[in-house]
Each structure stands twice: as C-alpha cells, then as structure tokens.
C-alpha cells in the first residue's frame, strides 16, 4: 500500500542525482521532502515533523552530506541520528517507593489497553522483580471492566481489589492501599477508567485520585496506532496529571508507530514499555532505536552490518570458511550457521534492511516462514551424530525415525537432504571461484551466509 519504506523512495530520488558530481541544495530539498512524507505516513505529528525536517535540512545542506560520496545513505544516517536522539535512551525502570507500597496509576483513552497492561505490568513486577503487586479496579463506568481485571487476576493468581460499581473511584483507591499495607503487598497498580482528555469531569476525578494516593508512577497508556491526535492526548494528560512515563500498546501490529515520536516530543516523558502481544507476559522494555527504524520503515544497511558484526563470531566464521573450502561442511555446521542467521533477528526484518530488496522480483512479497526454519532445525537435531557428519549413510528406516522424532514427514527430511546436497555443490563452485580470485586480490570470503 502506501508504505514503501523510506529507503526505496529515497533511492528513486537518488537515482536522479547519481552521475552528478555534486549534490545541490535542490537535491537535498527533494530528499528531505521524501523523508517528510515517510514520517507523515508513519503518523508522526506534522508539527514534530516540521521541526525535525528543519534540523535535518541544516545538517544535510552542511558539509557532511554534500561532500559525501553517498549523499543518499548520508541523509538516511542523519535522519536516523536525529530520530534516535529525539526518542532518547532506553528507560524501562519502575520507581520503588522508600516505604511500601509503591503506587502506580494507569491512565489513558478508552480502548488503549489499560486493563490488559495493568495485568501485564503486575506479572512483570512479580516475575522480574520478585514483587507482590495488588491490582485495583477503579473503572466503575465501563460495563464488566471490574470483571475483566478480576479474571486477569485469576489467570495470574494475583490479588485484585474491587468494590461495587456504585463506589467512588477515589475511595476504592484509598481502601486498596490500606489493604496493600495490611497484607504487606509492595506494589499497587490502579486501573482507571478510559476517558477522553477533553472530559473535564472525569479528568477531575483522576486529579482527585492523584492527590489522595500520591502515586509514584503515572503511566499514560497509548495505542501505538494513534494518529495525529496523539499529540493532543499526550499533551493534555501530561499537563493535567504530570505523567511519569508512557506504555505503548499493540505494537505487535503492523503500524509504523509514529505516535511514539510525537508523544516523546511533546511530553518529553520516557516511553518505558511496549505491549507486544495478547498474552500476559508480552510486555517488553521499549527500545527507542528500533522504533526509529520502524517509523522510517527504512532499509538500514548500517544496522544490518552492525548486527552481522556483533552476532557472527569471527572465529566461527573463519572455521566455517575453512570447512567450506575443504568440503568438510556437515549438517552440524549447517545448523550452527542457521543459528547465527537467526540471532540477527526475524528474516523478514533482515530482508527489510537490505535497500531495494523488496524491489527484487520474487522477494517482494516473499513471506518467510520462520516455522520452516524450526522444522529444519528439528530435523537436524533428530539425527544421530554420525548421520549429521555423513548424510550419505541415510536409508529409509533412518529417515523414518528422523521424521518421527522431529514431528515432520519423510518427504520433508528428503527435501532438506537434497537442499543440503545442492548447497554443498554450490559451495564447491564458489570456493573454486574464490581460489581463482584469491591469488589476485588476496581476500577471503566475508560472511558465510552472504
């Protein structure tokens, strides 16, 4: 659809200027326009975009880009730098009160995911920090909101404090804290009702709760799919309640999530956690750098190289190269190699990092089935050591056993063996080529899987 990714769009602009010895101001203008559109398409607020573009332009028209050999790449780098610095560093700490309990208030619009996030946060506090949280149901307005939190509490085996729907939320919060003190629970998570930031009456209620319970953290829960309005929402909640952090939900969807940038820009409060799925353990620390790449939807060669460098052990790579040359490459090595590629992240993401990759025929809509990789892994792991070293000993009964052990079929085992065989053949050709080159250039192969 509309999302082509910044890299692709920049590339078409760059095509126009390759061949030119120098990049003109006009060229930079064209490039920044593409950046601007990409940011707007990602739902970054237009005011935030305006400021960003101004800064990017200043840097881009300056020396660092104009005199670079690859102005396009340089622009991307500048953009990413600016975005990353705007997003700030990672901050997923939760306050600890001097005197228990620590009180956390969850606030936000309707449907942002406050109740689910409350449950997830309680789970995280118990699992990671070994704390004893109490969940408090202060949403007396939405039908069955209390039941929802109670059900979550049951699923998590976590205490939930609630009163009837006629009760006053301020009163509920106060009584809950008394209970936490009595029972020596060290965290109190107050789930409040969703409300519009322009609803004065309900905003007043939140202020009252805040004054009464003096929370140590106030988390604004925001749907990552929010559009331009994210600025108004975040600004308003922050102005009235002085939030301490943001939780971004539904980030496992396919939104580009520009709202994250807008919220950070207008409130300057850290985004601490991200909801990454429907299960109760799917709340993760928020990674600002990853978000920057996601917003741009850009092929980021830089981080691909970084990733490759950090995940591929140099020594291992050398040993592998040696094996390939001497043709002693076994299924064990194949498995190890796969593990290294996997360490770099989901294949789709890796592919997305190669600019132009989605322009390649066949690759454009290729869906990488991570499950297939798992199957391959299972098949190899179901083989004996001997079989892995020398697949030629494979016979029907061995294959049957392997298929059974890995939960696959004999035909899948066959397919893998055939692929492995072909791969070996290809390697032979490649290493032969390499030998020929070696004399002249003296360079070995870089990464084994590229």
């Amino acid at each position, binding site marked *: 659809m*509309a999302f082509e990714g910044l890299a692709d769009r920049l590339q078409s602009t760059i095509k126009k200027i390759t061949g030119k010895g120098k990049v003109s101001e006009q060229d930079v203008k064209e490039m920044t326009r593409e950046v601007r559109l990409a940011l707007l398409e990602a739902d970054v607020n237009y005011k935030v975009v305006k400021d960003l573009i101004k800064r990017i332009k200043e840097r881009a028209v300056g020396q660092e880009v104009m005199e670079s050999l690859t102005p396009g790449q340089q622009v991307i780098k500048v953009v990413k730098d600016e975005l990353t610095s705007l997003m700030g560093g990672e901050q997923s700490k939760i306050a600890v009160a001097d005197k228990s309990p620590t009180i956390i208030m969850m606030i936000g619009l309707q*449907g942002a995911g406050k109740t689910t996030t409350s449950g997830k946060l309680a789970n995280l506090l118990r699992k990671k920090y070994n704390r004893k949280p109490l969940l408090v149901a202060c949403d007396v307005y939405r039908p069955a*909101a209390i039941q929802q939190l109670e059900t979550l509490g049951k699923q998590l085996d976590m205490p939930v404090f609630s009163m009837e729907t006629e009760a006053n939320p301020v009163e509920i919060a106060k009584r809950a804290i008394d209970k936490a003190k009595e029972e020596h629970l060290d965290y109190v998570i107050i789930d409040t009702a969703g409300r519009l930031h322009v609803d004065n009456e309900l905003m007043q209620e939140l202020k009252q709760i805040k004054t009464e319970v003096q929370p140590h953290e106030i988390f604004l829960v925001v749907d990552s799919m929010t*559009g331009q*309005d994210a600025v108004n929402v975040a600004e308003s909640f922050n102005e009235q309640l002085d939030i301490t952090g943001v939780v971004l939900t539904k980030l496992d969807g396919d939104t580009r999530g520009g709202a994250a940038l807008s919220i950070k820009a207008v409130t300057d409060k850290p985004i601490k956690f991200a909801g990454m799925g429907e299960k109760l353990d799917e709340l993760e620390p928020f990674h600002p750098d990853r978000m920057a790449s996601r917003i741009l939807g850009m092929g980021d060669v830089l981080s691909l190289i970084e990733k490759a460098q950090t995940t591929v052990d140099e020594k291992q790579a050398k040993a592998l190269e040696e094996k390939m040359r001497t043709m002693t490459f076994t299924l064990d090595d194949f498995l190890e190699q796969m593990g290294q590629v996997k360490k770099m992240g989901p294949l789709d993401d890796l592919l997305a990092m190669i600019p132009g990759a989605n322009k390649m025929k066949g690759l454009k809509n290729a869906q990488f089935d991570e499950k297939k990789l798992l199957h391959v892994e299972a098949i190899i792991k179901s083989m004996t050591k001997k079989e892995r070293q020398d697949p030629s000993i494979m016979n029907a009964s061995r294959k049957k056993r392997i298929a059974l052990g890995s939960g696959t079929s004999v035909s899948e085992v066959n397919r893998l063996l055939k692929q492995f065989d072909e791969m070996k053949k290809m390697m032979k050709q490649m290493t032969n080529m390499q030998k020929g080159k070696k004399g002249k250039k003296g360079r070995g192969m870089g990464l084994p899987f590229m």
Partner: protein
Amino acid sequence: MGFMDKLKAKFQRNQENAEEVSEKYKDGMKKTRQTFSGKINDLLARYRKVDEDFFEDLEEILISADTGVTTVMDLIDELKMEVKRQNIKQPSEMKDVISEKLVEIYYGDDDQEMEKLHLEKDQLSVILVVGVNGVGKTTSIGKLAHNLKQEGKKVMLAAGDTFRAGAIEQLEVWGDRTGVDVVKQTSGSDPAAVIFDGIKSAKSKNVDVLICDTAGRLQNKVNLMNELRKVKRVIEREVPNAPHEVLLVLDATTGQNALNQAKVFSEATNVTGIILTKLDGTAKGGIVLAIRNELNIPVKYVGLGEKVEDLQAFDAHAFVYGLFADLLEKE
C-alpha cells in the same frame, strides 16, 4: 456564499429532522470542528497570496486530520489545477474551492443507499462486527442493538469474543440495558460455535437481527484472521445471503493504520461498512476521507458519545456540515 448555502440547503432537504441531527453532529464534533475549520480560516487570513507555502500549510492542516497522505497529495494536486484554471490569486477565493473538493471526496459517487444497513425484511438478518482490539466493538454493538430495537426489530446478540477477559460479561450488561437476549458460551470456547448457537437460537425465536460480536484482533495476525474467516463461513452456511452486513469498527483516533485495517479485514470478511467510534474527542476522523477515497467502503455509523443513543447513522451531509459549521455560520 454560494457553495455553502447550497450544502446547507441540500443537507436540510435530505433530512426531515435536520435540526436535531445537525445538533448532535455539531455537539459531538465540536472539538474536531474548532480545530479543523479554525485552522483553515487562520490559513486563509494569514496568507496574502496563493503560493507554494500556502499549499504546504494547507497540506499540513489536512494531514493533521489524519486524512491520509496519499489522499491529501491528490487533493492538493487537484487544488493546484483548479487555482490555475480559475486564475485564483487571493487566498480568500480558495475557501469555496477547498470545501468543494473536500466534499467531493466525502460524497464520492453520492450513493446514499450505500450508507444504510441492508437487512432482510421478513427473515433473520445477521450482522458480523469485526475490528482490532480496543476500538469499541462491544460498546457499538450495545448501541446498535438499542437503535435497531427502537426501530421495532427483535434483536439478539451473540457473544463471539470468547478471548478477552470480561468481554462476555460486558456484552451481557449491554443486553440487560437494552433488553435484548445474549447467546453465550464459556470464555475460551470456539467463537464459531458460539455464533452457530446464536443462529440456531435466533431462528427458533424468530429474531429479526442477530448481531455477532468477535474478539478484537490485529490484522497482521494470520491465525486470528483465519478464525474470523471460519466464523464468516459458518454464518454463510447457516443463513442464506448472510452475513448481511460485516461492520468494521474503527477508532477515530487511529492514524494511517486504519487504512490497513480496512484493507485486510475486507480481504478476510468482505467488510460492507464502517462504524467510526470515539469521534467526540479531538480526533478528526479524517480517515473516513481516505477510506472512502481509496477503498470505497462507506461509513454507516459514527459514535459521538458514551450514551446508548450516541451512535448515529452516518450522514455524509451532516458530517461535512459538522466539519464546516463554523465556516457556514460566519457567512
């Protein structure tokens, strides 16, 4: 001025209770309108001539309403053409041109019938309600049940959201409030089975409209989208011509992702209309423009508040009137 009067006249002719409806829209969309048309007025006052900067600012105003980048770019191009053709120099002359073009997109092919619910006259009609998490599906179903009941229809609800904690209870509360039966199973059961039960029960009780709730799901979750396909297949198999409506619930605060939602849910369940919720905040709901423009899915209802009667049948005329009421009244 000419065009706005025409719009007003057209709106009033189309609506017997025009005043009442327009008040609802005006109230609900107060925040939207204040920012949107206020900004356009500011823009017109600020600029001395219609130039590149003027268009860039206009572009931003439209984008700030979540109108969708592609739609805005198309619109700006058309406006530029229009400026050349009519030889417009003064920003004040742009007012009519801008409104006219915007309205053109809203109206699309001007098919009023598209915005109505298509239900059977004398037999069971099934409405399937789908959408991502937290957009207000269950609440909208409650309000829709109320609306249909007011029209004298016998309504039944099927609690197909068996996943989210408290979802079944939430629908039951709405059933109580509106006096409508709810068919349910336990949490965690197969949604297709619940809806199958719902259809059986609706048939035996001579229900006019069965509204099926489903669990919220993000459109990129393949398995969950397949589950939805299965639910739809069950409905298709059990009732001829069903589902009569597949309504996608969209949150007005959602940005560009709403387009993706509309597209992917359509592929899975052939969405026939949209319920646009939470239009009573500062969100502009401009995404309606983009969805009509790019996918041609009509909006059938808008949620303008929290009360049970705050779900209004979508009226493009009233919607535009709501957006531009300030402009209209100043003239």
